[in-house]
């Protein structure tokens, strides 16, 4: 049997891309067939193609914003997402489209009808299904070169640190201060950059927390630290609601932050909080 590289070499086709440059391309159907023949996951075949300068058609329109070299880095990266709800749903779907090689999804919940107003993974025909399993199912439809590991558990449940041995970035798509503080502590102990996001009404914020940054502890205090009366103060999202727009916007900013970390395009440490308001079309940057 010919080796994988020989099969890729005899399969790719020339095609002019949108900038008029002729490039080597390969289709999903061909990737799947080669994977099946060699009993290798599609992700592996995809990486092999990219390294041979062959662009899967699904990534053709990413260039030159995301180059072939960038696409290799993304395909060999792993991102852990804590929460698969309002923010997490959009984040997961965008990461799948971008071709992140491996996603670890953590959420202990099932979908309910109150999620339909904003959660991208929630449909009227998947109410009561577990969010991480639904994430895996939908990612497989979007991009078979993305491997999803579905964990039906909260990030604060007892977890093995070894699960994150290959994780490059963590995404905070949670909805409680306690869980966010737990995740911040975990990411710091593991030395993994964390992308924070939160929404309320038509507003939201995003921040990259590098292991040395004080970030999350400045934004949130635990209930224990705030005293027993802290739960009497309603959080902004409960006073303002969470319509669909802010989760989509903040998720896109979070995914851009993931790209900046993976592709080493952003600052290596920042302590900078970005606040966005759709209602006034304004963006403000703050220094922690």
């Amino acid at each position, binding site marked *: 049997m010919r080796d994988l590289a020989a099969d890729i070499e005899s399969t790719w086709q020339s095609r002019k891309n949108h900038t008029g440059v002729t490039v080597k391309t390969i289709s999903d159907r061909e990737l799947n067939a080669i994977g099946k023949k060699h009993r290798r996951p599609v992700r592996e075949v995809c990486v092999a193609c990219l390294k041979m300068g062959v662009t899967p058609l699904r990534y053709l329109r990413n260039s030159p914003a995301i180059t072939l070299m960038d696409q290799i880095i993304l395909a060999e990266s792993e991102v852990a997402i804590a*929460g698969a*709800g*309002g*923010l*997490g749903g959009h984040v997961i779907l965008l990461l799948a489209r971008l071709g992140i090689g491996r996603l670890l999804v953590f959420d202990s919940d099932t979908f309910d009808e109150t999620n339909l107003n904003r959660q991208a993974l929630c449909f009227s025909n998947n109410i009561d299904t577990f969010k991480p399993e639904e994430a895996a199912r939908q990612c497989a439809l979007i991009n078979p070169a993305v491997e999803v590991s579905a964990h039906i558990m909260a990030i604060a449940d007892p977890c093995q640190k070894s699960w994150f041995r290959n994780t490059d970035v963590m995404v*905070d*798509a*949670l*909805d*409680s*201060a306690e869980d*966010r503080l737990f995740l911040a502590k975990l990411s710091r102990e593991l030395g993994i950059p964390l992308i924070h*996001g*939160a*929404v*309320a*009404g038509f*507003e*939201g*914020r995003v921040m990259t927390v590098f292991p040395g940054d004080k970030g999350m502890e*400045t*934004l*949130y*205090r635990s209930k224990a630290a705030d005293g027993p*009366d*802290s739960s009497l*103060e*309603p*959080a*902004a*999202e409960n*006073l*303002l609601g*969470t319509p669909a727009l*802010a*989760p989509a916007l903040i998720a896109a900013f979070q995914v851009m932050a993931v790209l900046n970390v993976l592709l080493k395009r952003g600052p290596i440490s920042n302590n900078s909080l970005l*606040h966005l*308001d759709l209602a006034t079309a304004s963006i*403000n*940057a*703050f*220094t*922690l």
Partner: protein
Amino acid sequence: MSIEIKLFASLARYASHPLISADGRMGLPSPVPVGQIADALNIPRQEIKLIFLNGIHAQMDTKVKDGDRLGLFPAIGGG
């Protein structure tokens, strides 16, 4: 002296206070700590989780001076 004040998310409901002008400015007789401004606007201090003065993280006792930009945030945790 006057300062620019911006109340974010659910704190925006306190922005209709008569001490705040339509363009988001507030007149003050002299430099005062952030906490005193919150009291004057009837914003419960425990509702303020994050303070920025001229874009930089500040505290309840940080003094606000003429021309400063003050931003106040509540807890925001939706996801």
